[in-house]
């Protein structure tokens, strides 16, 4: 059992997750939304590592590595879409995407 209580790790992860969620909801700039998504994924990683270290199992770190690959792929696709969006609409404002013409 580690010195750090699991409850405190989970509280820390929840605070980070809520910060990222607020960022996704509040910001209009798509790049900031992607960054907030990174913060959220990171918070999930904190929760997994904390649980893994509380029970002294390596499964938590395995899940963290999978989240890492997910975050890398998500950022690659998201940024490519952002480049395409900047080319078409001339801005990164998410509200410009509210009219989709099939």
């Amino acid at each position: 059992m580690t010195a750090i209580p699991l409850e405190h790790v989970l509280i820390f992860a929840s605070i980070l997750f809520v910060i990222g969620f607020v960022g996704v909801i509040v910001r209009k700039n798509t790049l900031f939304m992607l960054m907030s998504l990174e913060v959220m994924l990171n918070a999930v990683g904190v929760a997994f590592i904390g649980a893994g270290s509380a029970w002294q199992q390596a499964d938590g770190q395995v899940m963290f590595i999978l989240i890492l690959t997910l975050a890398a792929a998500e950022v690659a696709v998201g940024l490519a879409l952002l480049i395409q969006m900047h080319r078409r609409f001339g801005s990164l404002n998410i509200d410009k995407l509210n009219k989709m013409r099939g």
Partner: protein
Amino acid sequence: MNVELFFYLAAAMAIIASIKVISTHNTVHALLYLVVSLLAVAVCFYLMGAPFAAGLEVTVYAGAIVVLFVFAVMMFGLGSDETLNAPQVRGLGIWAGPVVIATGLLIELIYIINHSGLQKQLSIDVVDAKQVGILLYGPYLLAVEIASFLLLAGLLAGYHYAKPEGQGGQI
């Protein structure tokens, strides 16, 4: 001095940096704070007995993913003159925040590595890279294969979507 105190310090730094990530207006400043936030979370991982995950956090998150963000920010500015959009603020104000938090993290890490009592306390319950590797290529082998498919799909999608119009970069 115990491990918990340092964990709370690093956690507070991570929370402050994350709040700054979502509240600043300049993209590059937000990226600086994002790097600091990821480094603070890496210190938390180290203190939780996962040094391998801490290294991965620094190399993959703070290294690769943030560099990808910086490249994208550079591509957004290619069409226009970036100096027109740059803020006119001069002085220490811009980089003082990230530098202070990052220096605090560095001092904390050096203190922990030097302190033999803390090291003894930390080394009791480390889940090291060997256990992770055995698990990753044993029961979780299918998940690793699926993750490699995901990375390949991300590579292809990124390549296709970021191409210019004339070269077939249609969505």
